[in-house]
């Protein structure tokens, strides 16, 4: 960043450098980053605020919910079976409601998918088409396993009495984890699209950036899960 009073020589040097850049790299993007990648980073920045707002909402809502349960508000107590409410009131937190080992396992699976995503990107950059297909499939499969786990978990919780329209806890829990699940699902769809391209032979090394960008999204979704897992399941 130069000031406005820049001498002409210096400026000309800059322009020359810029032109050099054009010839060397084939483009003169001012930041040296492709438009698509820059745009994706911006999109992820926006997503941070989306999840930030959702996580804040969850913390506030569940805090209020627990406060009402502890104080014994009859309207809130009526929304779930008494034994669950008693446990929540006793512990002063909703953590006892969760099956931590199960979710830890599915979290581990999701984290592993980040690793396979890195390997997929590496493979496509090296022109290793077989590896690309294998690692992309693995990533999509691990993601799908995570989503299946989430669907299973939702079913169990619903049967236990945690309903979306029941109380604050239900609304906040399903909304936050559901939003994340939707993001993972969109990621899986993008991976499937990449796989179709790969099987048609259209995913060559020059498309490495596409894989990299979808990888960025995938890693972002994983990192968000680490945060959600910590906030929702682990911290009392």
């Amino acid at each position, binding site marked *: 960043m130069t000031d406005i009073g820049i001498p002409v020589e210096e*400026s*000309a040097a800059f322009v020359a450098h810029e032109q050099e850049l054009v010839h060397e790299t*084939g483009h003169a993007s001012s930041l040296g*980053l492709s438009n698509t990648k820059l745009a994706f980073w911006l999109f992820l920045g926006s997503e941070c*605020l989306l999840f930030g*707002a959702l996580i804040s909402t969850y913390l506030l809502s569940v805090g209020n919910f627990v406060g*009402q349960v502890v104080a014994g508000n009859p309207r809130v107590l009526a929304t779930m079976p008494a034994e669950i409410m008693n446990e929540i009131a006793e512990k002063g937190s909703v953590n006892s409601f969760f099956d931590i080992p199960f979710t830890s396992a599915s979290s581990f699976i999701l984290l592993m998918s980040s690793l396979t995503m890195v390997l997929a990107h590496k493979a496509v950059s090296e022109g290793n088409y077989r590896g690309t297909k294998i690692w992309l499939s693995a990533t999509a499969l691990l993601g799908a396993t995570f989503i299946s786990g989430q669907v299973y978990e939702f079913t169990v919780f619903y049967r236990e009495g945690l309903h*979306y329209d029941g109380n604050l806890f239900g609304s906040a829990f399903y*909304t936050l984890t559901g939003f994340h699940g939707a993001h993972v699902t969109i990621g899986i769809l993008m991976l499937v699209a990449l796989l179709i391209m790969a099987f048609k032979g259209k995913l060559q090394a020059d498309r490495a950036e596409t894989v990299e960008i979808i990888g960025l999204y995938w890693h972002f979704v994983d990192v968000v899960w680490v945060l959600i897992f910590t906030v929702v399941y682990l911290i009392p």
Partner: protein
Amino acid sequence: MAIIDKPLALPAGEPRRAARPLGVFTRPKEQTGISAWLTTVDHKKIGIMYGSAALFFLLIGGVAALLIRIQLATPNNTFLSGDAYNRMYTMHGTVMVFLVVMPIGAAFANFLMPLQVGARDVAFPRINAFSFWVFFFGGLMLNTSWFLGGGADGGWFNYAPNNGVAFSPSHGIDFWNAGLLIAGIGSLTGSINLITTVLNMRAPGMTLMKMPVFTWMTLVTQFLLLFAIPVITVAQLLLTFDRRFGANFFNVQQGADPLLWQHLFWVFGHPEVYLMILPAFGIVSEIIPTFSRKPIFGYPFMVFSGIAIGFMGWGVWAHHMFVSGLGPLSVTAFSVATMFIAVPTGVKILNWMATLWGGKLILNTAMLFSIGLITQFTVGGLSGVSHALAPSDTQQTDTYYIVAHFHYVLFGGAFFGFVGGVYHWFPKAFGYILNDTFGKVQFWTMVLGFNLTFGPMHILGLQGMPRRMQTYDDAMGFNFWNLAASIGAFILGFGVLMLLANVAYSYSKWKKAGRPNPGPDPWDARTIEWSIPSPAPSHNFDTDPVVTSLDDFWHRKYQEDENGVVRRVHTGAEIAQPGNGEGVHLPAPSYWPIVLAFGIPIIGYGIIFNLWLCIPGALVVIGALFGWALEPADDLDAPGHDHGHDGPGHDGSGDHHEPELETV
């Protein structure tokens, strides 16, 4: 001075792949007529469409405003019922904020910013078209509520729990949610697009600190949008879930905290305020130096104060909640933080004044509107300081004093700046100049109407008249100034309509005179958008402009001689580009942005009325996404960009650098 002699045209090399055989996916060819506008991806046409749509919505919001003023002209008036009044003022605020002021900012950003940074188009032209259409359809959807059970009735701030089904059983607020969520998609994709364009597609040599101030303010504005939109999106989604699917986020009976809505709303809402005013700041920062015939005073301070306003805008949201019982500690922190926003704002005003200082001012219409912004915004800024002081705010908040304050900022400030901008850049967009005398009459009509409408509201507010009142008593002492404000509102409405009248009047005069071209540089202006013909040709620049300094075009026209005296060495017309687009490839138009944007409101109606309706909506969206992904790049000798997924950036020759990257 140097202009790279490398042609801007894309390398007409061998196409990597032949065009797809699928006939349905060929791209539209029309260059004129309605379908050209519907399928265009040209940032200038999209900018003009943003402006036209905003004017259309301005008429709706303006009629609502006049109905409000008729109702309030006399005490105990029964012109509008309580219910009708609530819907009217809610829709007035919502329409004016989301569908008028924001899109006018987007109109200028779209039209102007790529020209100012010397780009061929924005980074992702198809996404740009999508941004416009999704905004437009979202706005239309919001306004269909007038015919489907009445507009929203919770205020534009729409506080919980009054926004719940229990207290607002009609569909108005559902439309408010759905329409604004949909329009918000457009704001988000638009902001990503414009930021990428500013950061990545500047002309060679245009470092950040050589960007025009308007481009800087666009950058700050779009960053504010990028981070603010997701927050209001969450708030509106939570409310939609509450209203349509029985969630409990704002259900006080279940222990929910209604202040959650206020926090989410104002974390969005305060940056929103700044992103409405900053584009106007940028516009007058271009107009004032041009017609003072000297550079903007303190350019780096102008830039950094804009950035500072942007940053500080995130730390002051709770000043909208001083009386909601936050506790004295929070109130202290937010009160002090808010007061200090006056510092960067004051720096801007003083710098504009310093630019006027010692200048040779041409007081044409654009300049008058800019001076109007400085003076009227100052009034709004001062009243802003008076309610940044929390104890004073406990007397002023939710009174007409606040109504006066934000209309001085948004109307006297932002809107005056926008009108000035229209006068200034009109020849660059349409090829003829708006009549200056007519414009001056319009300016003085608007100044009179505006100050007669909103000036008395300061008095009314301090005399205790609360906001959002359907009516008031004879005994409260509010009668006189309310009548004055109502008279002023009609004068103001007339003043705004004069802009349209001037467009028509000047056009007919221009046509009679044989359509003379105003030339590339009618104002002897400073920035590079004036170095191309008027109206701007669809390919923008014939050759890549190389920028060596701030106000580059001016410095090519005027240079210091050996005695250090600044002399004109060229006229604008001499060094302007001829507008020869031979060999330039432009991104081809596309059907899919409008189709994709059309599908989304169908889903919105589905969520309001019947979930089955979501299925056709989703089918349209999915179909459009496939069409988008599979349609060929513009034509055979353009590089192929048919990635199998959503292809932001693979739009084919969005800019003059990108295609080379993509074909490597």
